[in-house]
């Protein structure tokens, strides 16, 4: 081969071309390009480009119908730091998110563990708990809006019946967050019950039986066997749930105040702020900076997840 190289470089080129053509044909490169190319292009147009463009926009003052779109450097970010309603939205969203994640996942874990004790009936319960999951957020929130109604709502009727004071669920600025948490937990619980169920079923029975023979109580088995073995799944669900709940918007849109003056407190969340700035006021550069803040938050979560997984594998 090397001897041939020295003697006839041009022939070598031809040979290499022929070789490339053969591999290309063997590996069906033309087909790969034709099949994957357009799909990959779609990914670039619909995902990669918009993500990068969001970052670029955040350095401009940008109105979709105005020609003048000056570069403003970090101005949008400085503004973000001073924007009271964004700060409120951020605190609200974080508070909501922490509550919703903790309550949903704790309840889901509890229910999933208990379902393993009644294995035969479990599929029916899982199915019933899954109905809210397949219900879209808008009708789910609409259903609850009527339940939360301060005068005619069934929830206040219940409170009244057991002698508790009625609450202005959606009108009181301190209560509305719990109302939205309630809807969100109700909606997402079933999904996490099923996910935990899958993980719990993968824990070998022998392990638990052995512990039981050694005299471990149910509580000890839960703490020392079940929870440690479920750690990766718990971590996964924390990340997923945090991202889902941090992006809360539809229930807020449905349950809070509206331009037409539906009586409710105007509970601000991050996505709501982005929506308002971008599509109501058309301050797209500024909304872009808010989106970048959201992007950074999501990426941080993903990095935490990666770091924890790596640590786990290292051990």
């Amino acid at each position, binding site marked *: 081969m090397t001897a041939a190289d020295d003697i006839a470089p041009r022939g070598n080129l031809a040979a290499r071309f022929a070789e490339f053509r053969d591999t290309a044909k063997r*590996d069906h490169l033309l087909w790969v390009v034709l099949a*994957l190319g357009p*799909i*990959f292009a779609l*990914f670039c147009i619909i*995902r*990669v480009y*918009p*993500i990068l*463009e969001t970052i670029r926009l955040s350095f401009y003052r940008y109105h*979709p119908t105005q020609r003048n779109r000056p570069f403003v450097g970090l101005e949008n970010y400085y503004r973000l730091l001073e924007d009271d309603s964004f700060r409120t939205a951020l605190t609200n969203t974080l508070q909501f998110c922490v509550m919703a994640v903790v309550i949903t996942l704790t309840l889901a874990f509890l*229910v999933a*563990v*208990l*379902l*393993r*004790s*009644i294995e035969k*009936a479990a599929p*029916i319960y899982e*199915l*019933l*708990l*899954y109905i809210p*999951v*397949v*219900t*879209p*957020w*808008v*009708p789910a929130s*609409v*259903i609850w809006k*009527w*339940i939360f*109604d301060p005068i*005619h709502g*069934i929830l206040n*009727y219940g409170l009244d019946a057991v002698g508790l004071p009625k609450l202005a669920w959606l009108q009181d600025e301190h209560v509305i967050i719990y109302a939205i948490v309630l809807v969100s937990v*109700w909606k997402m619980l*079933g*999904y996490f019950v*099923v*996910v935990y169920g*899958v993980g719990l079923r993968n*824990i070998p029975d022998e392990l*638990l039986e052995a512990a039981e023979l050694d005299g471990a109580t149910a509580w000890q088995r839960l703490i020392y066997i079940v929870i440690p073995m479920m750690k990766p799944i718990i971590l996964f669900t924390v990340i*997923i749930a945090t991202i889902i709940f941090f992006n809360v*918007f*539809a229930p807020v*849109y*449905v349950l809070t105040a*509206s331009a*037409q003056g539906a009586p409710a407190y105007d509970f601000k969340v991050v996505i709501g702020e*982005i*929506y308002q700035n971008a599509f109501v006021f058309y301050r797209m550069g500024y909304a872009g900076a808010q*989106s970048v803040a*959201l992007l950074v938050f*999501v990426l941080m979560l*993903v990095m935490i997840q990666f770091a924890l997984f790596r640590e786990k594998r290292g051990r």
Partner: protein
Amino acid sequence: MFKERPIVIIAYVVCTVMAALAVIPFFWVLMTALKPDPEINAWPPHVLPIAPTLEHFYRILGEENFLRYILNSLIIALCSMTAILFTSSLAGFIFAKYKFPGRGILFAVILATAIIPLEVYIIPLYLMVFGVRMMNSYVALVFPFVIMTFGVFFMRQVIMAIPDELLEAARIDGANEFWIYVRVVLALSKSGLMALGVFAFSEAWANFIWPLVVVTSKDMYTTELGLATYQRQFFIEYGPISAGAVISILPMLIVFALLRSHIMKGIATSGLRG
């Protein structure tokens, strides 16, 4: 897992309560939708309607044109589902069964976008649609939902399980690659396609913020958008609002009831969300 008697009893009690809490709001909204107006505002509220009526359904379907919204949602969800099934299975097939330079990088680029929610990059998407003057069209409504990162990943997993010998055998019989994709790969990954299809359909159906942003006239409303707008405008009219909620949940429930085993299997194998 825990067979102690008290735990089993607690399990039945807790799970029954949770399942009841999950279902009761649906029952309640259905009852509200069937009650005539005076009964809706009756205090104390009674559970079953005394004089059940369909007037609210007539109102929401007739006057509010909810049928049109449902049709729009159906068109969008079906188009999106078909497109996602096609793009995900084809890309999944290529990534699963072919060696080519740059495969790792391309796959990484696609995967990297998986976790980033639509809300992050919705502004440039909107500007693209705005720029080509496609606002308020089906194309605009479907366009962000013709691909799904998770779908590519999921179909790749499904197709990797198909033995290479089957593909080789088809090649020896003279089949070309497209034929293999259609006749071998698609045929052998039906249950994966089913699970992904249900997921894609419900994602497109349930999305709210995208239609809110690109739709400018009532005739292009989706069910979600129509319901959200209606309940903001006529917030006192709980009869028609409830009827609208019932109508917009129904298609999802039917899909779920028909395909529940596929959906549950999808979650079990990959954390697919419904």
